């Protein structure tokens, strides 16, 4: 038995690096410090859903084949394609992503990562107006106002609150954990009282307060000392339950709300009573809190990038942060979801100049969102092959895009039999990065962290990097052969 400390968790953009993993006979048996999702990954990596050997679709069914046959088939597909898509890259390490860029350049394809359906709009917003941000350590120690806008870290980044924001003990700011617990206890007491009333004290049914979208007035605690949590969302999420103040915005109206806040930050008068369903007088109180804080931060998620406005929402959120910086100190950060999607953006940008949606078909990298993004290429039906690695567009892309993906030869590299692998033509099993393979990954604040190998991969199962290198070599040799044949023919 061995206990391995300070393991980096390979699941979300938090990259918690304090996980303790117990290994017995080359198998993880216990995980400490992780969230529910972390535990599921470390316990589920060896499950029956794992792909055990390379598969090729023959007569409509996936059948096991040798590694060499699969590599040759995949390389042939890529080498013969005019406009292949190379998509995914988020659940793997930077080392594999680097090989991916070389492969994309070699085959003249579209190289894209999962940011396209995640924080692609945030990258575009940043390209428009820049971004005032920092590392999470700064926020942990200094932030006294924390805003989660259109994101639910309790569900998507379960330890974000506890490690970096409201429930963490910072050097200059205290954890709000105790006061939150008191609040929960008080609420539970109230509930008990109500049910006692209902049970016997009066025959009359208790007056139930109809819940409505019209949320409450900002509580007095919003002006309190210490850390404050504000959540802005279209529904009351788990994170919203913990917030000092929850603002329920009407769907697709975030842009208006942010512009209204910008106006109020600049001391301008609004000539409407409410914006996006929120009374302006409440907004004034919120702005009061924002401009009077010492160090504020806005975290934003898919609520902004996937609803109406998309990258314009991000642009205006960053502009709001900039305006707030005229009055106090404010930062903004996207809640990067997928494990190493930030790393994919960085590796692609450092190798090609662009963070996502890179088109190599002309022999040099081009980037034009809406044209060179994988989603649009698929919806227009322009691609003629695809390689999907370390992601699952079969379960994350709209139906029509997946139909377009399945119409052409589809190569899949993944440890698990996911939706895309079920639809694939050539399927490679790979080792779990961060469990069976080491490497580098980038946290949501773009800090690179080392990943640890805690167990050996099953026999014969290669890492993403090794697989890609094999395919790349084979592509090169097929292309060299073709050139030779052409020369001889001439």
């Amino acid at each position, binding site marked *: 038995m061995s206990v391995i400390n300070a393991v980096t968790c390979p699941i979300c953009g938090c990259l918690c690096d304090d996980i303790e993993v117990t290994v017995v006979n080359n198998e993880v048996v216990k995980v400490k410090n992780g969230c*529910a999702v972390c535990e599921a990954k470390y316990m589920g990596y060896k499950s029956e859903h794992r792909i055990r050997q390379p598969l090729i679709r023959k007569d409509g069914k996936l059948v096991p084949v040798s590694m060499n046959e699969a590599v040759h088939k995949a390389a042939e597909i890529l080498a013969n394609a005019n406009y292949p898509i190379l998509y995914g890259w988020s659940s793997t390490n930077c080392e594999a992503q680097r090989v991916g860029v070389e492969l994309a350049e070699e085959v003249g394809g579209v190289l894209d990562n999962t940011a396209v359906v995640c924080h692609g709009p945030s990258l575009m917003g940043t390209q428009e107006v820049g971004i005032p941000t920092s590392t999470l350590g700064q926020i942990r120690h200094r932030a006294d106002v924390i805003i989660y806008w259109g994101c639910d870290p309790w569900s*998507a980044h379960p330890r974000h609150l506890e490690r970096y924001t409201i429930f963490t003990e910072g050097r200059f700011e205290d954890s709000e954990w105790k006061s939150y617990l008191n609040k929960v206890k008080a609420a539970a007491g109230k509930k008990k009282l109500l049910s006692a009333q209902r049970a016997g004290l009066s025959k009359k049914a208790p007056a139930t307060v109809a819940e409505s979208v019209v949320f409450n007035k900002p509580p007095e605690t919003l002006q309190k000392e210490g850390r404050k949590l504000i959540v802005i969302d279209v529904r009351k999420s788990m994170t919203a339950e913990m917030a000092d103040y929850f603002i329920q915005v009407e*769907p697709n109206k975030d842009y208006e709300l942010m512009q209204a806040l910008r106006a109020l930050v600049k001391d301008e008068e609004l000539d409407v009573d409410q914006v996006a369903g929120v009374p302006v007088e409440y907004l004034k109180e919120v702005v009061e809190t924002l401009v009077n804080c010492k160090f504020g931060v806005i975290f934003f998620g898919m609520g902004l990038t996937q609803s109406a406005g998309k990258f314009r929402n991000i642009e205006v959120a960053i502009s709001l942060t900039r305006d707030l910086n005229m009055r106090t100190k404010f930062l903004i950060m996207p809640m990067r979801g997928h494990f190493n999607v930030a790393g994919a953006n960085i590796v692609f940008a450092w190798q090609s100049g662009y963070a996502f949606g890179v088109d190599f078909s002309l022999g040099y990298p081009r980037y034009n969102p809406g044209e060179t*993004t994988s989603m649009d290429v698929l919806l227009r039906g322009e691609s003629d092959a695809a390689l999907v690695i370390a992601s699952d567009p*079969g379960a994350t892309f709209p139906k029509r895009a997946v139909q377009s993906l399945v119409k052409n030869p589809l190569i899949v590299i993944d440890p698990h039999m996911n939706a895309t692998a*079920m639809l694939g033509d050539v399927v490679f099993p790979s080792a779990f990065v961060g469990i069976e393979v080491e490497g580098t990954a980038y946290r949501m604040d773009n800090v690179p962290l080392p990943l640890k190998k805690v167990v050996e991969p099953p026999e014969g199962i290669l890492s993403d990097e090794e697989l890609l290198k094999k395919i790349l070599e084979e592509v090169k040799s097929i292309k060299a052969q073709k050139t030779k044949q052409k020369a001889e023919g001439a």
Partner: protein
Amino acid sequence: MMQQKLHVTLLTGRTIEQGVGKEYGKSSPEYYEACSMVYMDADDMQKLGVKNGTNVLVTTPNGSVVLKAVKYPRSAIPGLIYIPYGPWANSIVSNATTSIGMPSFKGTPAEVEAAPDQPVLSMKELLKKEFGR
């Protein structure tokens, strides 16, 4: 009053159960349970005559899918429905990328009707139906 159909705004997004399910494996029962459902407002469910756990048919211009209706536990969300990310949600989401690569996963119109007699498809059945594989 009972209604046949309800016009709503469709949201798709993460839930912790979906996150846990995807790590166990996309073909795991955890993933199926977590993703083949739709959160609805309690009053909206009443309007449709739908109970917690009844199947409903959600339709958009892009398709329709049968899901298990679950009451949204934390607040009223009148006129909203919330489906966790997954193949079920994606069989009906809008693919309008508004020319920036990002489909409209949140905030598009949809219709809900009760479908107590129609089954919720498993992932295998769903993939077979939509993609023929």
